């Protein structure tokens, strides 16, 4: 089986507009939560989100040297043709590709370099705005760029056009498991020999009134901390009351191991295992016994040829919802048995909120950086756990720790689950 390694990482997160600063701020224990400044929230029960800070000032980016610079995604003309989720995805992809140093020269190399970037919701803000234009001004005012700006696979399309990658061009839509599925499926395309390099990840730029109203109607968002946004995302804490809406993108460059070695690429970690499953239970709630997540983790470990005892760290799905958090931890405990002793886990959603379709990709990137830097990011706001566990939940502060193997979990609406196993590469 061909081995797959991570040779590039690009991030746009509520902490910062790039990889380095996002990671540093994550480890420092900073929060990307804030009051929503993008639109009026007066009549919404949830008034907070984890917004990406922009150099233009929005999302609290004013004066922040690490804020997201939209020019990184493309020119104003290029950006006008795409939805916000594509802007984030293109910027993260550009950073990941540059970080990897991979520039295919020959036609064959281009055809062996593919793109697979998914999104949970895609261009919802653009759909909402265009619906309003149609209603108020009629069909002649609908932009010819509306459809291609909103279609989820268009991020993969735009990245391929921009960089000339002619390999597999694909996308994933599995709600909050999207990013993890995109990375896992991309790894398999490389293992199968359909590509040598895959630009893989997830992106989400769906923060708008209709999205917040919709998630709030489903009673999934935190509403108790509108005046203290940084305290809202608190996985495993007894006061948690829902997730914090986030936005951003995570894109990885995945590469066949020998291909990466041959060109002397820096390697963050190896993608060793990937597991998927369905709950067959409920549209928004996980099965009470967490068997879907359990089976995804079990399959990922089987493909990695590892046992639970080999795993040092789990980056959990842990969204800070009352029901889901404990179900996932209990599933980990059942799967790991005696080896929960000495296991560390954390939910980085405590810092960046829930990036929906980008979550799995950003969290896989954080997991790879944790492996590379021997550092576990913290679970912020975990002051009083609502249940007991022998697992170290890494409360409040990051923790230095050697990590040989790590798991990253992502679960989505519809009962879709994905787990990735990443491992350290010792040169």
């Amino acid at each position, binding site marked *: 089986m061909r081995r797959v390694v991570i040779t590039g990482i690009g991030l746009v997160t509520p902490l910062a507009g790039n990889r380095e600063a996002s990671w540093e701020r994550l480890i420092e224990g900073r929060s990307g939560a804030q009051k929503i400044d993008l639109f009026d929230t007066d009549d919404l029960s949830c008034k907070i989100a984890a917004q990406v800070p922009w150099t233009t000032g929005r999302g609290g980016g004013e004066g922040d040297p690490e804020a997201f610079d939209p020019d990184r995604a493309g020119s104003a*003309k290029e950006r006008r043709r795409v939805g916000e989720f594509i802007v984030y995805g293109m910027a993260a992809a550009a950073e990941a590709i540059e970080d990897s140093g991979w520039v295919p020269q020959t036609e064959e190399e281009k055809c062996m370099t593919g793109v697979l970037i998914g999104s949970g919701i895609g261009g919802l803000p653009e759909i909402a705005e265009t619906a309003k234009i149609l209603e108020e001004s009629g069909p002649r*005012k609908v932009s010819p*760029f509306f459809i291609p700006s909103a279609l989820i696979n268009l991020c993969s399309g735009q990245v391929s056009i921009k960089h000339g990658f002619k390999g597999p061009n694909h996308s994933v839509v599995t709600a909050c498991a999207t990013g993890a599925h995109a990375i896992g499926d991309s790894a398999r395309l490389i293992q199968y020999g359909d590509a040598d390099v895959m630009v893989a990840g997830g992106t989400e730029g769906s923060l708008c009134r209709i999205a917040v109203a919709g998630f709030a109607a489903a009673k999934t968002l935190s509403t108790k901390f509108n005046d203290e946004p940084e305290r809202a995302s608190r996985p495993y804490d007894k006061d948690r009351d829902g997730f914090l809406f986030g936005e951003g993108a995570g894109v990885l460059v995945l590469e066949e191991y020998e291909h990466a070695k041959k060109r002397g690429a820096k390697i963050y970690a190896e993608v060793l295992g990937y597991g998927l499953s369905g709950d067959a239970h409920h549209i928004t709630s996980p099965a009470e016994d967490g068997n879907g997540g359990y089976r995804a983790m079990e399959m990922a470990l089987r493909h990695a040829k590892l046992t639970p005892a080999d795993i040092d760290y789990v980056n959990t799905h842990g969204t800070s919802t009352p029901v889901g958090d404990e179900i996932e931890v209990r599933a980990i405990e059942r799967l790991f048995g005696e080896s929960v002793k000495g296991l560390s886990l954390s939910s980085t959603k405590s810092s960046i909120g829930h990036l929906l379709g980008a979550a799995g990709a950003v969290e896989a990137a954080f997991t790879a950086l944790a492996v590379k830097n021997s550092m576990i990011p913290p679970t912020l706001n975990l002051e009083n756990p609502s249940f007991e566990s022998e697992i170290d939940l890494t409360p409040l502060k990051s923790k230095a720790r050697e990590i040989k193997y790590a798991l990253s979990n992502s679960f989505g609406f519809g009962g879709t689950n994905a787990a990735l196993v990443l491992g350290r590469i010792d040169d």
Partner: protein
Amino acid sequence: MSDVFERVKKIVVENLEVEADKVTEAASFIDDLGADSLDLVELVMAFEEEFGIEIEDEVQENIRTVGDAVTEIKKTQG
């Protein structure tokens, strides 16, 4: 140069991100100014907005150069 041309030129420069001196009456949107068919639709919408007019679909199909656009806008304005 007419006032209509100058206003058209301004829109073309902004929408297509091209150098102002490239936007001549004879310049073809697609061959000289790097537009594609979707850009053209958007440009016509911008002209309609700017001049408060409506350009029929059949007429739109005949707009290939900046000069064509100026002519059609003047005609529609009456």
